[in-house]
């Protein structure tokens, strides 16, 4: 009897262990999701009385005003759809890239998620992880032209939507320029002159992060565009017939190194991330900050006197690109996971919520909405009005290199740029290495 009880006890312990191991697993296997997705398509939508939760991943809100815009938009959506709850999680940019790729590989994406356009999202689409949104878009066609969502279109299929369209802007501290008797640069020569005058007075011109290498890329991307022109740059970095041996790339690299050598950037830029770096602009240490308008406007919107700061476009270098040719575009997109259990609800939610985030964030002066009907009013801050004026004058825009390129090319580019910044390689070696990478 004792032996039987001992054996039963052992079997029970083993059973508990196996149950514990099983509980650690996830029910969201690819097979499960495919089955659920198939069921979903056949069932054509959830029952309105069924309470569902949609998981959403976005980047970290930079300011309270941006958080409020999101909260309001989600609150509006939930009020209009009482049976649907949106559970939004926020993540820091660089860490989010890793999290997103892990989730794609493990088939554990949330229902709605933020991603970057261009080469970043292409592998996800080719692997069938993103839901096509053309059908859902039809209901919102009057709210936003499809051409404004071009960056979310891959092989003529729409996969996402956006809050706004970005462009890089040169933010400057008006008081510091006035105190030093300087006017805002319109050409690259003007910019160099302004930099030198600040440096002569012991003021570092630019707040920049070299630790987050995309901060350096904002500079080089602009220099290359203005030196060479959009078409040649795009053809080169997308391996579509261009060559990094073209003279303009080295010229742009030399300009970049020139700025480093004269001391135009913070000494400690290599140890600063973006959030730390822009504090030097905000606290009046550095008079200029070259940044994407979505972040720049967010930061200015939280300042006490945002009209103390002005914005201009990156100056002209030669005839290959005009002042109205800019780095930018709708590089940030919001997409739906193809394996979501509720494709109709998620697809509708992504359009409704993003539309309202665009509206509320423009009202707060954070972002420029690309949705129809979101016009600026007279009370909008000056930097936003200038931003809108610049966007209305656009002759071309080009997505950031690290968004346009494949992941491997992009990381190689950023690594080489950091080596160029630190002086480990010359501009010629930089161009040779980029050529090797893009012809691999």
């Amino acid at each position, binding site marked *: 009897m004792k032996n039987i009880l001992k054996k039963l006890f052992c079997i029970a312990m083993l059973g508990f262990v196996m149950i514990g191991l099983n509980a650690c697993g996830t029910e969201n296997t690819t097979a499960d999701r495919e089955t659920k997705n198939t069921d979903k398509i056949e069932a054509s939508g959830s029952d309105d009385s069924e309470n569902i939760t949609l998981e959403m991943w976005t980047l970290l809100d930079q300011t309270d005003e941006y958080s409020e815009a999101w909260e309001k938009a989600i609150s509006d959506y939930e009020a209009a759809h009482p049976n649907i709850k949106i559970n939004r999680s926020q993540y820091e940019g660089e860490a989010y890239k890793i999290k997103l790729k892990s989730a*794609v590989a493990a088939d554990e994406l949330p229902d709605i998620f933020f991603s970057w356009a261009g080469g970043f999202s292409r*592998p996800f689409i080719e692997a069938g992880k993103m839901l096509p949104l053309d059908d859902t878009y039809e209901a919102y066609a009057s709210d936003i032209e499809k051409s404004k969502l071009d960056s979310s279109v891959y092989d003529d299929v729409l996969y996402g939507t956006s809050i706004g369209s970005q462009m890089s802007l040169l933010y400057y501290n008006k008081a510091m320029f006035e105190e030093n008797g300087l006017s805002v640069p319109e050409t690259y020569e003007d910019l160099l002159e302004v930099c030198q005058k600040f440096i002569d007075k012991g003021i570092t011109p630019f707040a920049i992060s070299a630790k987050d290498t995309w901060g350096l890329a904002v500079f080089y991307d602009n220099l290359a565009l203005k030196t060479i022109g959009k078409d040649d740059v795009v053809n080169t970095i997308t391996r579509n017939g261009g060559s990094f041996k073209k003279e303009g790339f080295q010229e742009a690299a030399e300009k970049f190194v020139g700025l480093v050598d004269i001391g135009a950037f913070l000494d400690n830029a290599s140890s600063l991330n973006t959030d730390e770096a822009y504090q030097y602009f905000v606290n009046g240490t550095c008079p200029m900050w070259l940044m994407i308008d979505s972040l720049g406007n967010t930061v200015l919107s939280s300042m006490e006197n945002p009209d103390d700061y002005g914005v201009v476009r990156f100056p002209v270098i030669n005839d290959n690109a005009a002042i109205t040719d800019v780095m930018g575009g709708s590089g940030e997109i919001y997409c739906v996971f193809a394996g979501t259990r509720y494709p109709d609800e998620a697809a509708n939610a992504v359009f409704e919520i993003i539309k309202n985030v665009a509206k509320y964030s423009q009202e707060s002066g954070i972002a420029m909405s690309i949705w129809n009907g979101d016009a600026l009013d007279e009370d909008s801050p000056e930097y936003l009005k200038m931003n809108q004026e610049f966007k209305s004058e656009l002759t071309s825009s080009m997505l950031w290199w690290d968004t346009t390129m494949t992941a491997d090319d992009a990381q190689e580019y950023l690594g080489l740029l950091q080596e160029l910044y630190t002086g480990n390689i010359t501009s010629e070696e930089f161009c040779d290495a980029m050529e090797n990478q893009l012809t691999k």
Partner: protein
Amino acid sequence: MNKIWSNKKAILFFIFPAVAFFAIFIIIPIFMSLYYSFTSWDGIGKIEWVGLNNYIEMFQSPTIKFGKAAVNSLLIAGASTLIQLPIALIFALILSRKLRFRKTFLSIYFIPVLISSVAIGQLWMRIYNGDYGTINYILKSIGLDSLCRNWLGNQSTAMVAVLVPIIWQYIGYHMLIMYSGIKSVSEEMIEAAKIDGATGSQVARFVTIPVIKPIIKVSVIFAVTGSLKLFDLIYVLTNGGPAHATEVPTTLMISMLFSRNRYGIGSAIAIFIILECFLFSMIIQRIFKEER
């Protein structure tokens, strides 16, 4: 009880869950990584067999800079063994004496081990900050402005700057391991040595340390293998920068896997780290065996 120990089936039965867990979560993933290391795969799409190409590229490619990363990891391993462990041993020897507040000191030295590496990284980033950091502040206040540096942003100082918190964090851990070993040394042996006229340091050198050699061996293995696979502190402090100055194989592996979508070469780096740790463990075992 003897009946249970002699019953091999019973033994197998009870260790089976642990072995199954070990096999599923450690052994099988290693073999999966080994397989992926021979392929070209972006983590999402089709897998393509490429043989040894990933290993060749890892060692030969000038852009990956694997050689520098490997050297940095060996530097960290060396610093851990030659700096961290001696300090831990000295602390353990001092605290093993009948010292007032001994337990308090033990707890204090162990605190860094308990704190999250992310928190430690953030703390040391503030200490190293070029504008308001503690180190530069102290240097400026004693008139040594010329020694102020951008500690984490300068290629010539970044590696040393990163080593300091790495060494600091685990001194308490090794100290505790050695302390428990020292406390198990027979009191009679120590008394006999003292009767023979040995001083405190002679007792430590000729009695205590030889007796706790197996403990020291364990600490050395943990220190070396831990250093070879270190990731968290470096990721937080510098992420391998500036310009690969503090790159180690683990940061390179993460970059290849998640930033560059190159799961093949990332897996090859992972296999290299595993083999490296295994090799060093064998070497350390051999060294300590020969010394016996």
